[in-house]
């Protein structure tokens, strides 16, 4: 049963991902990205990471993807731009990423991972993650919050300057 659900989420993640990479319509690519991100959230939940799965849905699908779709809509006035490079560039890109894919899959399957002997049942992780964030990882946590604030202010500043400059 678990394997069936796992395979369903793998297909849900991988198939739209091809569409993101290959589609010639940027709107289709954006909506395929939605399905891929949802599939990744499902994989997180299957790995026993309930909190990360929910955060993935809230932040990626509710935030980042909405931003990207807004960006797509705001930049599609006028004629549709050519979306990808011409054939030699495509071939080189496919060759490079194909080579890396083969290398990564060989490394993943041939290595001897120190896998835990028995997988425990997944437990609720929110409390433990909260303790880690405000304990062992307090400084990275604060740095991340400062980074988010800086990104917010920086994004507003960049766009305002360009609007005023016009």
């Amino acid at each position, binding site marked *: 049963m678990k394997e069936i659900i796992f395979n369903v989420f793998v297909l849900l993640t991988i198939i739209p991902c091809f569409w993101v990479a290959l589609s010639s319509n940027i709107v289709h690519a954006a909506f395929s990205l939605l399905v891929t991100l949802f599939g*990744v959230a499902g*994989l997180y939940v299957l790995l026993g990471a309930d909190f990360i799965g929910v955060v993935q849905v809230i932040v*990626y699908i509710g935030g980042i993807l909405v931003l990207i779709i807004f960006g797509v809509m705001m930049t599609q006035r006028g004629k549709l*731009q050519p979306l*990808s490079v011409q054939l030699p560039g495509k071939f*080189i*890109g496919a060759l490079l990423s194909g080579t890396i894919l083969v290398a990564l899959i060989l490394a993943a399957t041939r290595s001897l991972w120190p896998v835990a002997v028995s*997988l425990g049942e997944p437990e609720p992780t929110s409390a433990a993650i909260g303790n880690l*964030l405000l304990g062992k990882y307090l400084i990275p946590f604060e740095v991340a919050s400062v980074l988010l604030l800086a990104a917010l202010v920086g994004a507003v500043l960049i766009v305002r300057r360009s609007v005023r400059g016009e």
Partner: protein
Amino acid sequence: MPYSLPSFLIVSSLLFCLGMYTVLTRRNAIGILMGIELILNATGINFVAFSRFLEPSQASNLLSGQVFTLFIIAIAAAEVAVALAIVLSLYSRMKSIDVEEYRELHG
């Protein structure tokens, strides 16, 4: 595929390589951003899968991989906000979203 560590690593390798192909071949700046999101998601899957399947060196390291994934998600949010601001600002200046038209950025 069986529910095991190599399966998750293969899935994340596929995500990574498709993201890399997207970044390499798209000319649409927002398409490139989507490729970067795929790559970041591949990293997140790797971290969570390792934290689930591998034996932790100390008991306190049990959920460290998940905490790192949280940081990746936070950084992705910051990155996409700034990148979209830059793309929209370039678009309002050049009236184009094709990265090959941004040649005057060479300096």
